């Protein structure tokens, strides 16, 4: 049942993108998102789409996995498109009752749709090629300058990685408690919303207690192994830039420059 859910959407395979330093991928994704909002014409979008297509080919991840991420936000996208379509002032093209669709509206809605599609495929490409582990490591390293501002970067990263380790365990626990309560005649499926919410109590109380017990145990085990925060800690798998990472940075910034030039300066 629940244990079959896999978390994160990492796709295991061999590729240049998989091997790349997670910091490069994080920065590249950020740059890509920025570029999508900087460009203002269709040449720019064409460049962005071409760049993304290249990355997808390099990643060796089947294209249908990228589409998966789209499904979840399809509704949000439709909403944004419809809103832009109807509420942009300009020369009306089609009139439906009191609503009018303007030429500017069509243009804006089309841009919005393209932007969102590229944005989502782009960022899911990053999660598909990076393990959650590397992702947290990369985030910690990139955000480390914030430590000077007393932001607990290491602690947040540690929390994220512990959460990732315990989510499958807690899912399994949920499954077990659910079955145990069903064996005592509990009913999680029928009834109206209020009854369903009430039926969750016998599941949630034991689950929270279990989670706290685990957290307590884990804190003790970490202390016993000399954990005292990020200070003075070394890394078993430190992040080291290699040649391909510098090249990747180069490519990304060339892309950014190109998209500014093309996307801003060329008409339409």
């Amino acid at each position, binding site marked *: 049942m629940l244990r*079959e859910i896999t978390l994160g959407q990492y796709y295991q395979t061999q590729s240049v993108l998989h091997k790349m330093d997670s910091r490069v991928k994080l920065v590249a994704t950020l740059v890509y998102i920025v570029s999508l909002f900087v460009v203002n014409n269709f040449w720019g979008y064409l460049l962005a789409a071409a760049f993304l297509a290249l990355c997808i080919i390099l990643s060796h991840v089947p294209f249908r996995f990228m589409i998966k991420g789209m499904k979840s936000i399809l509704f949000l996208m439709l909403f944004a498109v419809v809103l832009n379509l109807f509420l942009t002032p300009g020369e009306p093209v089609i009139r439906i009752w009191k609503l009018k669709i303007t030429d500017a509206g069509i243009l804006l809605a089309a841009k919005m749709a393209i932007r969102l599609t590229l944005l989502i495929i782009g960022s899911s490409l990053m999660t598909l090629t990076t393990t959650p582990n590397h992702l947290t490591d990369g985030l910690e390293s990139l955000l480390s300058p914030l430590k000077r501002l007393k932001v607990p970067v290491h602690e947040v990263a540690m929390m994220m990685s512990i959460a990732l380790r315990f989510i499958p365990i807690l899912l399994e*626990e949920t499954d*077990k*408690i659910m*079955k*145990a*309560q*069903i*064996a*005592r*005649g*509990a*009913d999680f499926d029928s009834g109206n919303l209020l009854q369903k919410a009430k039926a969750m*109590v*016998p599941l949630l*109380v*034991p689950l929270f*207690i*279990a989670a706290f017990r685990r957290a307590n145990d884990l804190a003790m085990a970490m202390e016993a192994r000399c954990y005292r925060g990020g200070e003075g800690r070394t890394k078993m798998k430190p992040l080291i830039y290699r040649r391909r990472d510098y090249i990747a940075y180069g490519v990304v910034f060339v892309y950014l420059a190109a998209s500014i030039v093309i996307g801003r300066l060329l008409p339409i």
Partner: protein
Amino acid sequence: MALKLEHVSYVYGADTELAVRALDDICLEIPEGQFIGLIGHTGSGKSTLVQHLNGLIEPTEGTITYCGRNIWEKDFPKKELRSQVGLVFQYPEHQLFEVDVFSDVCFGPKNLGLPKEEIQERAKRALELVGIPEEYYKQSPFELSGGQKRRVAIAGVLAMQPKILVLDEPTAGLDPRGRDEILSQVAHLKKETGISVVLVSHSMEDVANYVERIVVMNQGRILYDDTPSAVFGHVKELEEVGLAAPQVTYILHRLKENGFDVDVKATTIDEARDTILKAMREEREC
């Protein structure tokens, strides 16, 4: 009243490449009033089997009947089945959730939609059966000791007044005192109520003292289904599948090999003592 499994198989993740055959052609009958031990090491399929008994898992192949009716028939009353076949999971104390012991035990009968008086009566009776005295009724279940918590959890299932009680590793994680308390309490309630009890365990020693029939599982199949002494006779075969007979059995086999005329069928310490004494006495007399 019997629960009957006929050629039951179960495959995990049937449509994927990772399909695992957890149960393979299981035929098993649980009659009224029997004390059964279900033995197998981790991954032998015993936990999967147990979840078939009260309809939590649907078999991939084969049929399960209760009182002659297929439990996976369209309008079979599942809730009633679950009250008739009470299943106590491993670490059952992890399912406690109510503010006090008594309300927690009431949860099962309440789900059956019984009148209030009957619910309370059943809860009281169940708590009596597992030996929890009245002064604990209004305490929070989380303040009890490990063994007490577990007994309250067992009472929570007993309060549904099942005809068959299935206990999955009821002694896991307890110390010897807690373990003995639970096992003797289960034996006691078996005698009191006359219901069938299925005791799932990986410890032959735990089970040998109580049950009248042992079912040994290995790799999803039933390896033996017989009386304890007959099952323990297969010491070598049990060893091969990673299970150990009680230490007593080993001692007696060793003595027999060394020329002592002992009865290797003895499974408890008292029986072993008697047969060794008898052998020594005969030695003296001849």
